[in-house]
C-alpha cells in the first residue's frame, strides 16, 4: 500500500494539545523530542515537521 500525505506520528512535550488516531509520543524535554523525532523520521521514511516548539508531526509525503 502506498500512503501519501498522512500524519504517521506526533511527538510532543504537551500531550494535551494532541488528540486523535495518530500515535502520540510524549517527551519530557525538547532534546528528547528531537531524538525521538529523528528516530521516527528514519524508521517511518517520513519528514519531521515542526508545528511549534513543543510539537513535531511525522508526515509521509
Amino acid at each position: 500500500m502506498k500512503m501519501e500525505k498522512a500524519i504517521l506520528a506526533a511527538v510532543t512535550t504537551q500531550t494535551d494539545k494532541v488528540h486523535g488516531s495518530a500515535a502520540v509520543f510524549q517527551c519530557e524535554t525538547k532534546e528528547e523530542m528531537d531524538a525521538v523525532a529523528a528516530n521516527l523520521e528514519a524508521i517511518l521514511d517520513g519528514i519531521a515537521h515542526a508545528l511549534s516548539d513543543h510539537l513535531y508531526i511525522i508526515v509521509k509525503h
Partner: protein
Amino acid sequence: MNEYTYPILFGIVIGTALRVFMLRTDYRQYPTYLHGKIIHLSLGFIAAALGTIAIPSIMEKEFTAVTFLTLAASQFREVRNMERNTLTEMDAFELVPRGNTYIEGIAVAFESRNYLVIFSSFLVTLCYLAVNIWVAIAAAVLAFVLSNILMSGSKLSDIVSVEHSELSFEGAGLYVDNIYIMNIGLPERQEEIMKHGMGFVLTPKSFSIRSTIANLGQRQAILHDVSVTLGVFRDSGTPALVPLIKRDLNDGRIGVFILPQVKDPERAKEIISAVPVLENAIQMPTKKR
C-alpha cells in the same frame, strides 16, 4: 549493379552517418552503452534505407512502394514507446527522478531524429538521381547543418536569469530568498541543509515564460540535471533531504533548493542555465495565432 546502386548506397550512407551524428551521449545518460547505441544506429540505418528507396521506386513507377513509408512511421512511433517505457521503468530507481515530461521530451527527440534521417536520405538520393553527385553532396551538407539546428532546442538561460541565493530558516520554514520551500522540524536536519544546501532564484524574462517554468515537469528536469551532474546529498529513506523547487505566487519567480555533493555555486548556475527547455512545458499565453 544498375543505375540506382550508387544513389541508393549514397543515400543510405548519408542517412546512417546523420544518425551517428545525432546520437549524443552526455549527462542525460541515455543511450549510454553499446546496446542502446546499436538499437538506435540500426533503426537509423533502416530509416535511411526507407527514405532512399522511395525515389527509385517512384522513378520505376512503383508507386505502391511509397506506402512503405507509412510502415516506417508506425515503426518509429514504436521507438518512442520503447524509449518512454525504458526511461519510465528506470526513473523509479533514480534518487531524483527525471519526471514524465522530460522522458516524453527524450522519446519525442528519438522519434523525430529518425524522421530527419528519412527526409535527408530522401533528399540526397533525389538530388543524386535528378541532378548529379555534387548536388547530392551539397544537399547532404545542408542536411547536416539543418539537423544540427533542428536538434538543438533552447536552454533555460534563454528564458530566465539565474541567481545564487542564500538559504535561510525562519523557525522551521526553509526559505530561498523569500520563497518558502518546506518545513524542516529537526535542528539536526536544518544544520545538514545549511551545510550542504544551495539556493537559486530563477527570474522569468517575460510574461509567457512564467507558465513554462511553473510546469512541474520542467522543474523536475532542473532538479534531475543538477543532481546528476553535481551528485545529490541524500539516500532512499531520507525524504527530508529531497531537493525541491517552489514558486513565488506573486511574481512567478522560481526558488530552487538543491543538496549537491559538490557545493560549487558557479558550476550549479551553469548547469541550471544549460537545462533544456522541455517542448512539452512551453506555453505561449500571449500568442493569439
